[in-house]
């Protein structure tokens, strides 16, 4: 079967929350917590310095999200970890820097979330975190997903003051043009390996583009000559072990890749859905996210 005509993976509800400001870090944490709950995450328990939420995908897969306050860089900041229910594997600790003048966008649905600061490409102190459970294939070209009990991914840009930002879907969709260390995935209780040298060995969203090797000035975008995008599923992949084939672990819900380079935070409508660009100005494509609950429930990814 030649790969074609892949569908959207949809989960309801889908909520976009704009946090125009917060009076302090605790207030920001409360507002982000509320935004996640609004998207279908469930309160699970209190944990040290915060709360634990539970995300559940339509396929019944689950992941914990710990929303806490901590001092990883010597000052208090918002922290998010994802954690496997099966083996307890924990993602890196992602951070969001707090300033009174900052605003935030949170897009959430029952098994995923995308946080960013409108107009901000990236910040080493932390401005963007995303993650969740992808839809695993069940019945089509990527068939035979048997026995999947645990699969989730997470990204964040903040590696701390004085450090370059980490690769994440806010600035790139695939291999990353920035530091690694922060891309993470868990599949059936096994953590995605992290390769400190080969960025392309780390978890990423697949990109469709020229087979030619990357160059500093590529001179092309993977779009049709008409200027139209190729729209394709946001497949998340990583190898295991290192330096082995990238395996597609699933398709990110309520998302798609548009093959053109777009500015972040731009609203659009396509196929009757409301979208916003999460990726900001990446040559090879843009991760687009649903911003509203679609009227018709799709979930026809595979």
């Amino acid at each position: 079967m030649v790969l074609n005509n892949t569908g959207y993976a949809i989960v309801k509800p889908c909520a976009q929350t704009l946090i125009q400001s917060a009076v302090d870090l605790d207030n920001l944490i409360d507002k982000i917590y509320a935004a996640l709950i609004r998207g279908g995450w469930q309160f699970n328990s209190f944990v040290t310095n915060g709360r634990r939420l539970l995300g559940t995908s339509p396929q019944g897969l689950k992941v914990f999200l710990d929303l806490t306050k901590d001092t990883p860089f010597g000052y208090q900041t918002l922290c998010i970890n994802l954690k496997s229910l099966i083996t307890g594997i924990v993602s890196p600790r992602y951070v969001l820097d707090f300033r009174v003048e900052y605003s935030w966008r949170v897009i959430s649905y029952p098994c995923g979330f995308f946080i960013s600061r409108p107009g901000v490409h990236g910040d080493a102190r932390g401005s963007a975190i995303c993650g969740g459970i992808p839809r695993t294939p069940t019945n089509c070209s990527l068939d035979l997903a048997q026995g999947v009990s645990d699969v989730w991914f997470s990204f964040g840009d903040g590696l701390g003051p004085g450090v370059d930002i980490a690769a994440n879907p806010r600035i790139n969709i695939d291999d990353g043009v920035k530091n690694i260390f922060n891309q993470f995935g868990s599949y059936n209780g096994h953590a995605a390996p992290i390769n400190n040298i080969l960025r392309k060995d780390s978890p990423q969203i697949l990109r469709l583009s020229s087979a030619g090797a990357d160059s500093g000035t590529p001179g092309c975008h993977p779009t049709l000559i008409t200027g139209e995008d190729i729209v394709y599923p946001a497949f998340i992949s990583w190898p295991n072990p290192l330096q082995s084939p990238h395996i597609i672990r699933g398709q990110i819900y309520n998302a798609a890749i548009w093959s053109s380079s777009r500015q972040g935070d731009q609203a659009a409508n396509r196929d009757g859905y409301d979208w916003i660009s999460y990726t900001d100005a990446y040559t090879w494509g843009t991760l687009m996210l649903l911003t509203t609950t679609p009227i018709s429930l799709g979930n026809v990814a595979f």
Partner: protein
Amino acid sequence: MSTPIGLNGITLQSSQRANNQISTVLGQENDGIDRIKDTLLKISWKFIEDVKATSSIFAPFGWGYLSFLSNVVTIDGTKFVFYDPAYQSPPSGPDIFPVSNASGSSAGAQSNLASAISATGLVNATIQDDQNIILTATGYGTAGNGISIIGQGSVSVTHDTAGGGWKIQSRSQTLLYGRGNTDRILLTVRSGAPSGSTQLDFEIDGQIVNYRMAQGIWELYANDFSVYFREIGQLVGGLDIYRLNTNVWGCLPLVPDNFPISSSAFVAFGSGFLTSIGQSNSFNQVESWVDGTRITNAQGQGGFSLVCYHNEAERIFDITGQPLLQPALLSLFVSFLGESRIVGCIPDAFIYSDYIPIDQQVFMADGLYYRSMEFSNSATFGTLFMTTGETVGNPVPPPPPPPQSFTGIASVDGANLTYTSGDQYTPAMDGKSVTILFDNSIHTIHFVDPTHLTLVPPGPTGLSTSIQITL
């Protein structure tokens, strides 16, 4: 979900493979040239004309030297010998052709020699200028190659006739599928010069790309819109699906008719170890055309490449650990956009997200059999598979019969087309399309009588041209 518009791959089911059948070895080149022609004509390519073999001889041939008999040239064993009838009897002998040289001028001697050579019927001699005579074989296509020409003048050289072959043309997608690519490949396959080499001339949009095939055994893959030559034994690894080596490939991508271009094509080739491009070019090269604008040697991300799921370090597999199958989207540099864009897809092909050694695996997809044509085993791992027309196990469905076509010569004068030769016209042609091969323009026909048609829109004026009518 939205999909690449019309780019999911069309299976033409017209593919043919001529494996181990194309020899360019010295002494076998005529047979190889004929096999290339025959393979392409088996599919849907159109025979245009034969190409006559040629040679040349040049002065001094002996004219002006009147006092002795002078053997000036030997053609296929026949010696053409000057004599002066005022002083000498015509020379005679089983292999001697006497040429009168009574005029006392070089021009007269040259004219007499050309007439004498033409009288043999083996070659036609044409005076090019006062120093040169062009010899054109009368034999059809490759039959005119290899006629021995031995110059006897002080600076004449031995130069057998060469260059004989065939001119064949691919279809236009507009005629066949109503799609957006009006280009055709006009391929001339002929012996090269000096004799012993085989030459391919790809003519696209009136521009010619030459490729001299190495002496060896080649295989050929072709379909309605693509012809691919590869020398067996030169299947080296490390080929790239965005840059090609040791082979030559002319292709018309399938262009959806809603794309804002009317034509596109490419010819990709490399020097490999033994071939050469023109005189000395030894670099890999891709010539591409978009809307008639030719771009030379733009490869990789900014030029010719295939588009697929990309990773510069690892293969990309699905969740079961199997490679992906993807449409073979083609990206070419588009001058009016200043960057490379997707212009269409490779017909009868797909991309497999792992590398498979060239020519060594038959793969079945969509009920057709495919063969690995190109691969990359580094940045963006992948293999380009193309249908080959081969049957392994279950038979491949037979190709659909090509549309019935009529060909001939006609005079075209605006809206009026008048029969000259070839197939006469029938009422069944009314409302069908005619292609005027002079400019590849396409017109709707209205039948008048067996020797007259009218054209909409009108064609060129005052033109005698080959035409092709497709029913």
